[in-house]
C-alpha cells in the first residue's frame, strides 16, 4: 500500500488561556475586540496534528496541514511545518475566525478538491473559540465520507485504518474505511511534540501554499444562523473566603460552613 495522504485541519484561535479579565467584546461587530490577545494554534488542533504525525512516524503517511485563516495569521501552519508536516496550505480569507461553520466547511471541501488522493482528514473536535464543534462533521457530510468523532488513537493495520474513540462513556476500537474524517479529542498521548530547532528555523523559510477563497469558487452556501447578541456575563458571585490560622483550622471552619449550608 502506498503511504496514505493525511490532511490535518488547523485553526488559529484567540488565546484560550486569556485571562477573563482581559476578554472584551466589540459590540459593534459582535466579535472579540481587536488586539485583546494573540491568535495561536488551538489545543484540539494540536492533538489532531500529533495524531497525524504519529501516522507519519508509523507508516510514512504524507501529512498536509490545511488552515482557513486570516492571511496574516500563520501560527498554526508554521508550527506544523516546524514539526515536519510535508506541506502547508492556507486558504486566505479575512475575518475567518467568525466564518459560519457551513462556509468554512464549504471552503475546505473546495480546497480538498484541489489536493491529490486524500485518504484521511483529521480535525480537532471543536475550535476553542466559537466552540461550534461542527466544521469537521459538516465536511464529512458534504464529502459523503464516514466520520468517527473523539478519536484518541489511530493506526494502520496493513491497509485498514483502526481507530480508538470515545463512545457512550467508554471507548470503542473500530475499523474505518478510507477516505474518512476523524475528529480528535485531548489526550495525554496526543501532546504536540517539540520541534527540533533546525526544523523550527527551516519552517520560517518553507513555503506555505496559498489558495484564495474567492478562487475556490465557494460562497454558494447561505448562513445557517444569525448571531443576535454576544456578551460577557456579569460575575455576580462574591466569594466567601473561609478564615483560619493554618490548614487544620481552615478545614474545620470550612466543614462547619458546609454543614450550615446543608451541603454536608
Amino acid at each position, binding site marked *: 500500500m502506498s503511504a496514505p495522504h493525511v490532511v490535518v485541519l488547523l485553526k488559529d484561535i484567540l*488565546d484560550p*488561556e486569556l*485571562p*477573563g*479579565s*482581559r476578554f472584551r467584546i466589540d459590540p459593534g461587530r459582535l466579535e472579540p475586540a481587536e488586539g485583546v490577545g*494573540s491568535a*495561536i494554534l488551538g489545543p484540539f488542533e494540536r492533538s489532531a496534528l500529533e495524531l497525524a504525525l504519529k501516522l507519519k512516524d508509523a507508516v510514512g503517511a504524507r501529512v498536509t496541514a490545511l488552515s482557513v485563516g486570516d492571511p496574516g495569521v500563520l501560527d498554526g501552519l508554521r508550527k506544523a511545518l516546524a514539526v515536519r508536516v510535508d506541506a502547508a496550505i492556507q486558504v486566505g480569507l479575512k475575518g475567518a475566525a467568525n466564518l459560519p461553520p457551513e462556509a468554512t466547511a464549504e471552503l475546505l471541501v473546495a480546497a480538498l478538491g484541489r489536493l491529490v488522493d486524500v485518504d484521511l482528514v483529521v480535525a480537532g473536535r471543536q475550535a476553542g473559540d466559537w466552540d461550534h464543534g461542527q466544521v469537521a462533521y459538516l465536511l464529512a457530510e458534504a464529502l459523503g465520507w464516514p466520520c468517527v468523532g473523539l478519536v484518541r488513537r489511530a493506526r494502520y493495520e496493513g491497509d485498514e485504518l483502526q481507530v480508538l474513540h470515545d463512545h457512550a462513556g467508554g471507548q470503542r476500537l473500530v475499523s474505518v474505511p478510507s477516505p474518512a474524517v476523524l475528529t480528535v479529542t485531548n489526550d495525554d498521548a496526543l*501532546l*504536540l*511534540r*517539540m*520541534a*527540533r*530547532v*533546525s526544523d*523550527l*528555523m527551516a519552517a520560517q523559510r518553507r513555503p506555505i501554499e496559498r489558495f484564495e477563497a474567492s478562487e475556490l469558487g465557494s460562497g454558494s452556501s447561505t448562513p445557517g444562523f444569525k448571531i443576535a447578541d454576544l456578551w460577557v456575563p456579569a460575575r455576580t458571585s462574591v466569594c466567601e473566603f473561609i478564615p483560619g*490560622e*493554618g*490548614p*487544620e483550622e481552615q478545614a474545620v471552619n470550612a466543614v462547619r460552613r458546609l454543614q450550615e449550608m446543608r451541603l454536608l
Partner: protein
Amino acid sequence: MGVLLAAEPTRQIQWGVNAAMVDFMYASMTVALLVFSYGVWRRIRVWRLGRPAARFDHPLERGLGVLREILGHTRLVRDRAAGIVHWLVFFGIAVLFMATVVVFIQHDLGIGIMRGAFYLYFESLTVDVFGVFAIVGVAAFVVRRYVIRVGRLGPSEPADALLAAALLLILCTGYLLQGSRIAATHDPWGLWSPAGYLVSLLLGRLWSPAQLELVHGWVWTFHVALWHTVLAVIPFTRLFHLVMAPVNLYFRALGAPGVPAAIDFESEAAIGLASALDLSWKQLMDLDACVACGRCEAVCPAFAEGKPLSPRSVVLDLRQHVRENSRVLRRARRAAPGERESLTQGLPRLAGGVIKEEAIWACTTCRACEDACPVGVEHLSLILPLRRDLAMEQMRVPDGVREMVVSLEDRQQPFRGASAARADWYQDLGVRQLSDVADPSQLEVVYWAGCAVLSSPRVASVARAVVKLLQAAEVDFAVVGAQEVCCGDPARRSGNEFHYDQLARQNRPTLASIGDARVLTHCPHCLQALGAEYRQMGLVLKSVHHTELIQELIDSGRLHLTRPLASTVTFHDPCYLSRYRGQTQAPREALAAGGLRLLEMARSGRDSFCCGSGGSHAFFRDPVGRINRNRAEQALKTGAETVCTACPFCLTMMEEGVEVARPGGGVPVRDVAELVLEALI
C-alpha cells in the same frame, strides 16, 4: 675539611657522588624529560581536536589571576584544612625545586650564586624548613585519604598511594643526603639546615664518614632516579595539575561568571554537545585539568540530595570517553564532513549516552561546583551544552519544561496557567510605564519586574514593596510593565537556546531605549540575563539588583529607616546573586540598617546552598528531590525568627520548605524589600 670557617658559606655540589652517578643523572633526566614531553604532547594532541575558543585576550589580567591563585591559594583555602595542607606541599616542593634550579645555575651554568648569605638563608635554612613543610603536607594528605578517609576524595587508586610514597621517599631521602653530608664533612654551617642537622647527628653516630660517603652516593642516585620517574609520569597522573592548573586557570572565562556561550543560529551547525568533536579545546583542557578532588561534588546541592548528578563524574566520564576514543576522534576530525559521520556513528551520544539524562537535568546551575574548583574547570560549560543537545536536537526534556516552552512560545512567559496580565501588579500604585516616558535615558532607574510576578500574588507583593521603597526615596523611575517579555533565562538554562535568543531579541528594542539609565530588577535571574548575558547580542546595560539599590538609598540617606525591627534574621543568598553577580554584602547591610540581627547559616555568602529552583527547575513537574527542604532546615537551624531572601524563586522555594518543616509554624519568609519597608514606615 676544617679550614672553611674563614671561607664563604657554601657546599660542594655532588659531594659523595661519582662520575658514573652524575652521568646516570643526566641520562635519566633526559629520558624523563622525553617521556614527560611525550605525555604532554599526547594531551596537546587531544586538545587540538577541539573547536576554537576565544580565550587569548587580556594576557595580563589572565596571568595576574593565575599568580594570585598560585601565591594566594584563594580557591584552595575555601576548604581551609585541605588548603593549608596543599600550601605546605606546594610551597615545600616549589622551594625545593628552586633549590635544585640554584644548583643547576651554580654548577652547570657556572654562575656563582650559591654562596654567602644567600646560601645560608635561602639554600640552607629556607629550603630545609620548607622541605619539612612538604613532608608534613604529604603526610597529612596521606592521613586525609587513608586514615580519616575524607568523603569527597572518592575511591583511591594504586597510583595515589604510589605517588604519595614516592614523594615522601624523595623528601626523606633528601634529608638523608643532607644529614650524611653534614655529618661526614663536619659542615660548619650545618646548623643552618636544622632538620638536616638533626639527621646528621643520628647518622654521625651510626656510620663513619667513609661509610656515609658511600651511603650518600647511592641514596643520591636513588633520589635522582625516583624524582625523575615522578617527573616522567606527571602527565599520566593527577600530578599533571602542576602544569594544567596554571594553564587552565590562565584560559579561564573572564568577565561576568556563568555566561553560557551564545549560538549564532544562522551559521552554527552544532547547537549542542552531541559528540566529543563538538567540544572546544578549552573544554577538553578542562577535562584534563581535573584532579578528582571532589570539591565540586561536595558542594553540589543535587548530589547532596542523592540525585545521580556528580559534577566530578560528568568531567571524568567525558574525559574517559575522549581518551578511550581519541584515535577515532582524531581520525574523524581530519576526515571530510561526510566521512566524519560514519566514523563517529559507533560512538555513544554524549547527552544521554556517556552522561545520563537524569544527571544532566539534575543540575540547578548554582555554580557552586565551578566556584569551588581549584583548577578552574567550568562544569556548566559542559552541562548546559549537553542540555542543549537534549532539548534542541533530541527533544527529550522533563515534563514541565515542554509546557514551559509552549507557554513561552504562545504567551512569552514561562508559567503555564498563570492568568495575571503583566500590568496587573502595579495598577493601583500610580507608577509611570516606560512607554509613557518621553526620554527614558533621563530616568534614574527602569524597573523590570520579570515574569515571576505573574506566577503568584506573593511575588507580586515583593514588586509592590520595591515600588513603595522607590516612591519613598523619591527615585525617578518607570516600570517596563506590559512591554516586557520573558528575559529568557528559563529557556536558556533548560537548553532551549533558540527560544532564549528569540525572547532576548524581542526585548532588545525596549531595553535599548533606556540608554544610560540603570535597569533595576528584584529577580537575580533577570539581572544575570539583562545585566550580563544580553551583552552577547550587543546590548550593554547598566544593571542593579534591588538589594543593591536599597543599600545605596539607605547609605545616601534617601531611605531613612526609622522603625528598626528588633529581631533576628537569616539571609539565604540566591545563587544568581552571590555566585553570578558576586553580591553578598548589599542585602546584609540593608537588613542591618533595618535593625535586624543576622544569624548566618553554615553555607552562606558565596558558599550559599541552592534553593533548588535554578536551571529552570522551578518549572519541572518533579523538582530535584527536595533541595529546598534541605535548605529550609538549614535556615531554621539558625534559630532566626525570620528567613530572608532576595529572589522570587528562592522566596517560593523557601516558603514551601519552611512550611513543610514547620507546618503553620510561624517562621515567615520575606524578601529584603519587604523587611526594609517594614522598617521604614
